[in-house]
């Protein structure tokens, strides 16, 4: 579904952000990305999203080279969620606007927006403006916008960074619930075959493929099928750990499993070791 080979990026000021990153993600996989601040996680996501043309390397999504063009049926939750929300639109319209790409009518867009807002615990905030909400609420609006879009590839840059611990656990479970489809059945963007301009009107079958950047080691293991640890600077892949925990994950039972404890310790060691 997603293949990254030899990805390096050097910003215009000469700063090398990521260096020779290799990463391959199966359709439907949820890959957690952890690493110290400034190691190039956001840069990596921007390159995958086609927002940033890398200085070297190749990225393909569903068999198609990204090369500075945004892959179809993609959603991004930006780390800077306050700047990513449109202050001139209400919360509801913020969530509904991208759905125009799916060719949905106004009523359907609104219904989907309302549902996504309810899912993230923001019932009844639809007619307010983003700047009238707290930081944690705004972050959930950005999350709802991405979920309402039902992308086949979802890139999330610290999407739960500003919410309290309890809400965070709820949102982790929500993410696992809405990624859809059973495991293994992935690649909804269609491997090969041009996935035509724009999204399809209906939700593609199979699971969303998700890249989730997080600073929370516990979270990276709990939600991930894999945990990729980056080291900086420049960012390189330090280790790539498979998470063999049974589904469905349970916030109490899963965290008590010896395998969970072992993985969490291993990721922790990898993050700390330069």
């Amino acid at each position, binding site marked *: 579904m997603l293949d990254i080979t030899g990805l390096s990026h050097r910003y215009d000021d000469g700063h090398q952000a990521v260096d020779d990153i290799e990463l391959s993600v199966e359709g439907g996989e949820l890959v957690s990305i952890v690493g110290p601040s400034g190691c190039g996680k956001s840069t990596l996501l921007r390159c995958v999203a086609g927002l940033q043309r890398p200085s070297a390397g190749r990225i393909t999504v569903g068999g198609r080279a990204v090369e500075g063009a945004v892959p179809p049926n993609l*959603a991004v939750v930006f780390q800077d969620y306050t700047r990513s929300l449109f202050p001139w639109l209400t919360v509801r319209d913020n969530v509904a606007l991208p759905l125009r790409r799916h060719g949905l009518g106004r009523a359907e867009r609104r219904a989907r927006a309302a549902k996504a807002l309810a899912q993230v615990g*923001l019932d009844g905030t639809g007619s307010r403006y983003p700047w009238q909400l707290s930081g944690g609420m705004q972050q959930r609006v950005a999350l709802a916008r991405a979920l309402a879009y039902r992308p086949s590839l979802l890139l999330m840059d610290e999407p739960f960074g500003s919410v309290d611990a309890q*809400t965070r656990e709820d949102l982790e479970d929500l993410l696992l619930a809405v990624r859809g489809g059973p495991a293994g059945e992935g690649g909804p963007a269609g491997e090969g075959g041009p996935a035509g301009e724009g999204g399809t009107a209906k939700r593609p079958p199979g699971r969303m493929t998700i890249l989730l950047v997080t600073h929370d080691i516990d979270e990276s293991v709990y939600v991930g099928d894999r945990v990729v640890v980056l080291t900086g600077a420049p960012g390189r892949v330090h280790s790539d750990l498979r998470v063999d925990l049974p589904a469905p994950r349970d916030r109490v039972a899963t965290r008590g499993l010896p395998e969970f404890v072992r993985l969490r310790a291993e990721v922790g060691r990898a993050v700390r070791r330069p």
Partner: protein
Amino acid sequence: MTGPARAGAGPGPEPRAPARALLRPGALVSRRWGRALLGALGAGGAVLVLELLARGGAVDDDALPPATSVLARAAGMAVDDGFLGHLGTTVSAWLGGLALAVALAVPAGLLLGSLPWLDRAGLAVVELARPVPSVALIPLAILVFAEPVRVERSLVCYAALWPILLNTLYGLRDVDPVAKETLRAFGFGAPAVLVRVSLPSAGPFVLTGVRIAASVGLIVAVSAELRAGGDSGLGVYLLQTQSGGGRPDLMVAGAVWAGALGTAANAVLVGAGRLAFPHSARAAAGRGG
């Protein structure tokens, strides 16, 4: 799931709201009234001072008529068909020129602002053309257009063009790149990003440009009438009050009307901005207001 009541306990970055947000909404309301009261007091005081100056004989009674009689004259002119005809000519030339300027400057600004290499060239042209005062172009405009109404409208348009164009350009520069990338990431193309992000984001700037242009345009409209003549317009009316010994009370009353026009246009545009761009008004209204 969780209710909003518990939300926001995390240390999220503050949204771009001002520190004044701590003020209670009630305090804001009374503050607005307080400001209006102060304004009324100031205006009343000025009228009083002018009145005393004229009546007390400090200035020549003929040169500066008492404020109350000027205001009475101005009020009377509201039902004077002759004067209203003059006023209508000015207003239509002024608004016509302004509308033309908006229709030219906003698309030009969008075009220049969305093409980086044009942006530089565009700004250079603007910086060269802008310092030329429109009143200096009155003789040229008379030569070119001859007909007074067209002279007036084209000069208003010229004067109004620059503030609108500049504010559009600066507004587009100020658009948050993250907001643009957000829409791009959802698969929207450049035109959609321009219309759905850049334009609404730059909107408050553009409107400020229009407000500046409106006040500049009114000055130019009246100046053009004073110089180019014609048979109707506020400037023409002022010239007429000058002739035959002169009627200072009517002259000043005419000026009061010009001031009222400018004030009204400003108020309308500010109100429209509040309605159209609530996010830019939030600095004044505070969070949750």
